[in-house]
């Protein structure tokens, strides 16, 4: 049975009860982030290493990691800030040296405006880090061929964007994501652009294995409450996918089928 039809989400050698992944940027305080993460029920949360203190000095001014509860979540370091493969690989190695899991969410976006991922550098970094034993979850544009290439390179998931980070525009790339899901042999996590629980449910109904939400929770007036709403939407979308949705049609079925002449 593949992970897509099982009740738990399996990535690499780990299983997760929740299919909601949450990011930790943009919150109004570390306390509000901590509460929202709890409320989300997520088992996998990602944190930008550039925000964290990676030496052992317990810096109170760079203490975001202190607010992540390792007994509740697997912490997924991400490489935001890296502009190329070399930089992403460096910071991933440093995270492991600092005692973080050897899991990495690859984020390589040289363009600071739309934070769109660089496909060439992402593939290069995936190859290097997989060879070094990392579990690699690459953030990528919704490009089905790139998804195949990343899969071949040993990525543990593919993480296509629904729309640009922070845009809250939902699944602008829906038709490409459908192809990625159809072809995927690793879990598909729709990452970025999901602005409403309905977007999350839509991704799950399409058959995505999980979604990752950050901005829509972090900048909401009540992050914890909206995190719960997203959790419900993810569950509802997943259930609908597993049950199987009736296909929608704008036209009524003809009452006299064209194939009536074949008899019964």
């Amino acid at each position, binding site marked *: 049975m593949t992970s897509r039809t099982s009740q738990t989400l399996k990535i690499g050698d780990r299983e997760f009860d929740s299919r909601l992944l949450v990011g930790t*940027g*943009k*919150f*109004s*305080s*570390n306390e509000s982030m901590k509460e929202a993460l709890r409320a989300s029920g997520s088992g996998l949360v990602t944190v930008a*290493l*550039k*925000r*964290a*203190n*990676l030496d052992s000095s317990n*810096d*109170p*001014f*760079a203490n975001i990691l202190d607010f992540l509860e390792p007994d509740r979540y697997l912490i997924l370091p991400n490489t935001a*800030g*890296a*502009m190329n493969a*070399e*930089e992403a690989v*460096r*910071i991933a*190695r*440093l995270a492991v*040296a600092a005692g973080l899991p050897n899991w990495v969410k690859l984020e390589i976006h*040289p*363009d*600071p*405006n*739309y934070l769109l991922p660089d496909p060439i550098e992402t593939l290069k970094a995936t190859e290097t880090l997989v060879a070094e034993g990392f579990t690699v979850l690459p953030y990528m544009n919704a490009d089905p061929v790139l998804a195949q290439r990343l899969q071949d390179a040993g990525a543990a998931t593919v993480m296509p964007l629904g729309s640009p980070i*922070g*845009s*809250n525009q939902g699944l602008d790339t829906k038709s490409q994501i459908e192809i990625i899901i159809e072809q995927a042999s690793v879990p598909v996590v729709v990452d970025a652009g999901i602005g409403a629980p309905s977007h999350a449910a839509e991704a799950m109904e399409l058959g995505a294995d999980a979604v990752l939400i950050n*901005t829509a929770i*972090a*900048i909401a007036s009540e992050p914890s409450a909206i995190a719960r709403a997203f959790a419900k939407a993810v569950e509802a979308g997943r259930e609908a996918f597993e049950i199987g949705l009736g296909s929608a049609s704008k036209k009524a079925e003809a009452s006299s089928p064209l194939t009536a002449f074949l008899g019964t």
Partner: protein
Amino acid sequence: MHQTIDHPPMKLSFSKKFEAIDLQDLSEASVQATPSDVKRILNTGKANSLEDFASLLSPAAEPYLETMCRLSQAATLKHFGKTMRMFAPLYLSNECVNVCRYCGFSRHNNIPRITLSLDEVEREAGLLHRQGFRSILLVAGEHPKYVSNGYVESVVRRLCESFPSIALELGPLEASGYAPLVNAGCEALIVYQETYDENTYHSLHTTGPKKHFNWRMDTAERAYQAGFRRLGIGALFGLHDWRKEAIALASHAQHLTRNCWKAQVSLSLPRMRPAAGEFEQVEFLPDHQFVQLIAALRLFVPKAGITLSTREPATLRDGLIALGITSMSAGSSTEPGGYSAFDETSFTPKDEQPGEQFHIADERPPAVVAKAIAKAGYEPVWKDFDQSLLADPTVSEPMQSPEYQIGKIESLESLDPVSIK
């Protein structure tokens, strides 16, 4: 060692593009914009052209300030979240060969001239580090003897272990001059045009390398070629017609966003403050229009950072936290060595600082500013970059002490000889 990014030169530098922009025409059109022009723009939620931006600066837009601020807030939240990046300036030297009539460091001003030794820099930086700062802006006057590239590079190498993010605000250099500073660990380059009106510029900058208007204007692009990741530009409001300055600045920001696509562009909108010298500002930008300008910039270049310094008073700064600002300084001294003269517990100046560049307005210590930011519902972010992105921790390369450009330095008496190896 970090590989300097070698970007190809711009096809058309901003100084060339700028020649074709009719600021007079745009500012006149701005003043004459109608309420229906403003409503049309606000209905789309963004300024799609420089003309739209100019309309948002118009008197006709003033009654819509609340709407503009709401749109600005929403756009800022999407890209930057509920966070405020914190930084502090560290003044290395107030030696300057330029004559800038409005600046406290201007060559002929009779102020105590100071260039910090490396040990003094480290002491100042340590005081800022204790306050929480992990992002630092190194500022110096323009002086080939006292503020040589080798000196700045040594400072950067001293500080980069404690400060993940180092920005520079120095006299403009060639791209080849910037490259060693990027290699040493600098992330950002800040350069203000001061005024975009060429006649005003020449009347204010009478002597020194700063008098070259176009050379200064293209500095950010040279910095990008050398590999800087953040480019800060700005105009000093008070020197010339504020609308013209704002339109030019917005156009410059758009040009950099389009041409320097790997860099985060950030904007500063300093308003004149009292400083040494007799200069009287020619046009005051009132608070209401200042806020209007911030919101209009956000609707024109929604993903640009906007920095607010301690030049502005506390009440205004607190009010602006949620309206489009993305980075703030706090507890600043604008005098080289000024932090060492602060009261240790309150982190505020004990006495007047005669060697300062200008006098700040918000004297609250960093912790108090951070509290105000939290109270506004925002997280003060002290660390938002990591040197490991630049330097490979797995390669232990012996630190090369850069050589000073001895040929260019007539005397090293202002540098600590013990710290130069």
